[in-house]
């Protein structure tokens, strides 16, 4: 069980890293894009805008209070 947990922790750190919120925003944006496409809207713009906004949000959180 301990090794399984360590294995999971390794992959979490490997892919997601320091800030899970960026991954959550990307996942939510992909789901929203798929939903919009299913509704007939070609929402090509949603994911790039969300990813770059997520980066900005994550950077802001990482640097807040460090000046």
């Amino acid at each position, binding site marked *: 069980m301990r090794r399984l947990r360590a294995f999971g922790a390794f992959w979490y750190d*490997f*892919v*997601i*890293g*320091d*800030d899970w919120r*960026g*991954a959550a925003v*990307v*996942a939510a944006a*992909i789901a929203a*894009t*798929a939903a919009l*496409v*299913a509704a007939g809207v*070609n*929402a*090509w713009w*949603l*994911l*790039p805008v969300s*990813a*770059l906004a*997520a*980066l*900005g949000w*994550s*950077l802001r959180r*990482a*640097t807040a209070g*460090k*000046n």
Partner: protein
Amino acid sequence: MTELPLVLTVFVACAVEAVEALTIVLAAGLTREWRSTFQGMGVALVVLAAVIAIVGPALTLIPLQPLRLVVGALLAVFGLQWLRKAVLRASGYKELHDETGIYARQVAAAEAAGTSRRGWVHDWYAFTLSFKGVLLEGLEVVFIALTFGASQHSIGWAAVGATAAVVVVTVVGIAVRAPLARVPENSMKFAVGVMLTSFGVFWAAEGAGVAWPGNDAALLIIVPATLLAGLGYVTVLRRARQAAAAPVAVAVASGGHGPGPVRPEEER
């Protein structure tokens, strides 16, 4: 789409990881002993080859749209992580990756550790140090090469980029016999972060059913836009640091006490 961006991205990403692995291998080999170091490196390479042999063919069996959805999402998340670290380093909020410093710390730890023999391994410390270093850095190489290659149905070209990077870094490392401290690691990581994020976003959206305006040519907009956004974040963060440092400099010059330097994030 041409294979050149694929090969170049994998090459640069793999070169960065190979430089980091080289630092660890050199510290183990030069401080402890080469035989156990090479054994550790060899076993790690066998494990990586096994991962490639199992995962590589399996990825080619998955239909392209679901593959691009999953791989694109993973690459976008992974790329954003690289880009975030590179922006924080470029703007001074995180220490730059210092191969010379890392090498010195590894050497000090290797010199302090005792020697123990296990089975066919003469120096267990050198073996595990080399094994872990090569395996962990190698996994990133394998991850990038396989996901990038599979999404473009060009695992062969991705392998060419990865192999070329490892060969170049190994040859230079053998010639120099020191950590490759002059390699502009952060700029390379910034570039790779931009490429991984851009391609990840492109493929994930395509996997979600989006039809990109201009098809593959959309990447000619996405990549520069991501690059500009990254550079923009660096500029904004640098200015914020300078603006915060200015009153401190005035206070120190007039004999007051400033809040002290910004503590960078822990090195990962």
